[in-house]
């Protein structure tokens, strides 16, 4: 069944179609939610809220773009709102205007598995983690990130540079540890 028909069936209130839509995208979307949160329980909470928003706003989907992309944007927005509302993330989301941190020229080969890389991203402080995800993975510009998070563009750049630098150092350590066949110690 194509997405057009699936959306129309969902809008009619067809429970089977709604379940089908969920089955089709839930795995990938939980991956998105997982990258923004610190635990799988939180990620599932975000996924749940996100899908509720999807069903609530499905009538606004105009079939212009990919359904998956539209759902993904909802998930990202839901995740950011979740982080803003949840007290456990609030202290880490205090973005301070620091000195602009230059982006390093390091360009490591990312030989880690998807799961390993995701785990390393999730080890970043919540502020770094959010900005890194928004810029490196979702492709938002720093201006857009500034608007989404309510921070200055420069702050976003600075935080991203620190996050990238930190992540690369962890990746290097991880890969070095793998080369030396020593046990990896979490940063």
């Amino acid at each position, binding site marked *: 069944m194509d997405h057009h028909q699936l959306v129309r069936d969902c809008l009619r*209130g067809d*429970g089977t179609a*709604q*379940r089908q839509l*969920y089955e089709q995208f*839930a*795995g*990938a979307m*939980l*991956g*998105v939610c*997982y*990258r923004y949160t610190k635990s*799988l329980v939180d*990620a*599932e*909470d975000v*996924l*749940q*809220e996100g*899908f*509720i*928003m999807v*069903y*609530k706003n499905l009538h606004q989907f105009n079939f212009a773009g990919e359904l998956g992309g539209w759902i993904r944007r909802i998930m990202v927005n839901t995740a950011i709102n*979740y982080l803003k*509302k*949840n*007290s456990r993330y609030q202290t880490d989301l205090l973005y301070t205007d620091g000195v602009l941190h230059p*982006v*390093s*020229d*390091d*360009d*490591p080969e*990312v030989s*880690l*598995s*998807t*799961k390993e*890389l*995701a785990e390393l*991203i999730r080890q970043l402080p919540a502020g770094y983690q959010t900005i890194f995800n928004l*810029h*490196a*993975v979702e*492709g938002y510009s720093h201006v857009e990130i500034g608007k989404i998070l309510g921070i200055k563009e420069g702050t976003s750049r600075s935080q991203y540079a620190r996050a*990238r630098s930190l992540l*690369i150092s962890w990746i290097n350590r991880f890969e070095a540890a793998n080369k030396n066949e020593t046990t990896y110690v979490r940063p």
Partner: protein
Amino acid sequence: MYDPRFEKAVQHKMEELEIRPSESVWVNIEKTVSAERRRRGAPFFWRLFIATMLVGGVVTGYYFGEKAGRRSVAPATARAWTAGGAKASASDPSGPPETRNKQVEVSKTPAAASAASKKKYTRTTTSDDSVIHATIVSKQTAEERFADEAKTSSDEAKTSVTGNSRIGAYLYTPGLEEQRYGVRVQGASLKTNKNMVSLNTLSQVRRPWEAGFVAGGGFDRLNRLDGGQAGNAASYTASSFYGLTRAATKTDISDVRPGASFYAGIYLQKQVSNRWTFHTGLDLHYYSTSVSIGQQLNVIASPAASLLNQTALAAAPAPLVFTVGDLQNYVNRYYLLELPVSMQYRINRSKLLPLFVEGGAAVSRLMGANAIFYNPSTGLYLKNENVLNKTQFNISSALLVGLPFHGIRIQAGPEVQYGLTPLINGQGLGDQHFFYAGVRLVVLPGRK
């Protein structure tokens, strides 16, 4: 400048990330989406309910009124068949002019009508020497019925009845035809020299269903049925709260204060005897109470922190959570659809100021609520409809006085109602029961 190849690699790898969610996620989504669908349907339901009530009330009121109106003129408009097959209409204006014009007495005022009623008969002579017998028996002196021959035209018979009906506008005369018109035409006979005609009408008293509107307003409060249970609930709440917060005082937990309450709906009644009347109907009842609360929390409470209903709370995207305190007043609102049944007893026989006492029961269904409840395990006020018993049984009693108003029968008076079903089904919160006291108004449209 940094090379975006790193970002591309990360992006590529993250797009492959897929994790299978647990089954409970879909269960919660499905529950919330279907609840949302029901909530969206609710405004439509309310509109339909109000429209049905209005249309139903008007149509049934009109129907019963029309039916009763037809019956009231039946003796005068009934067609009589002579033995010879000649048809004579009692109210036929095309009859002989002498018959129509020779009216000895026409009651035009209530006083005159009353006098006519006391006189019990009217007399006239028709041109063709036909004699029309009409027997009109006063309701008040039913036991002293007598039959008196009267020479009258059929038009007079009608006039007599119509004239007496004007009394009804000034008296509270519920239910029966004879009560409304003050007199009852038991039988009429048309006699001619050669032919004999009989009209047998209203030989049996009929007590039809009547429809109208009911409304009321007053206040309600949450009572606790059992003093011991209430004490336990209070101490349980207080100890849990102190244990958790270590800083609050007992006064921080607000009392549940009374609030405004009102209702409206359609009303059906059927008189079962001269004094007893059965009532039913359908109405929408609004209850409210108020509590003092602190500030609203912007955090999403962890589902595990709630004793109320973990699944429902987890599914709610932005739950209403308040701390204890007295920063603001919060009004808990409840909307219940009620199906009452009751019996009404007429205490006196006064037509000017009749008194009624009524007792009955009702089953009601909670249609919506925004109520927040104190949760002793978290020390917070939470909104959660799942702790409410959605089906409620209650008993009620009322003392009503009949107020006639130009043919429209009105009953008004105080009433009380008590909920037999506890409002909350949660543990440790006490058996809270609704108590309502207010004024009731019943309007039964008059007959034509």
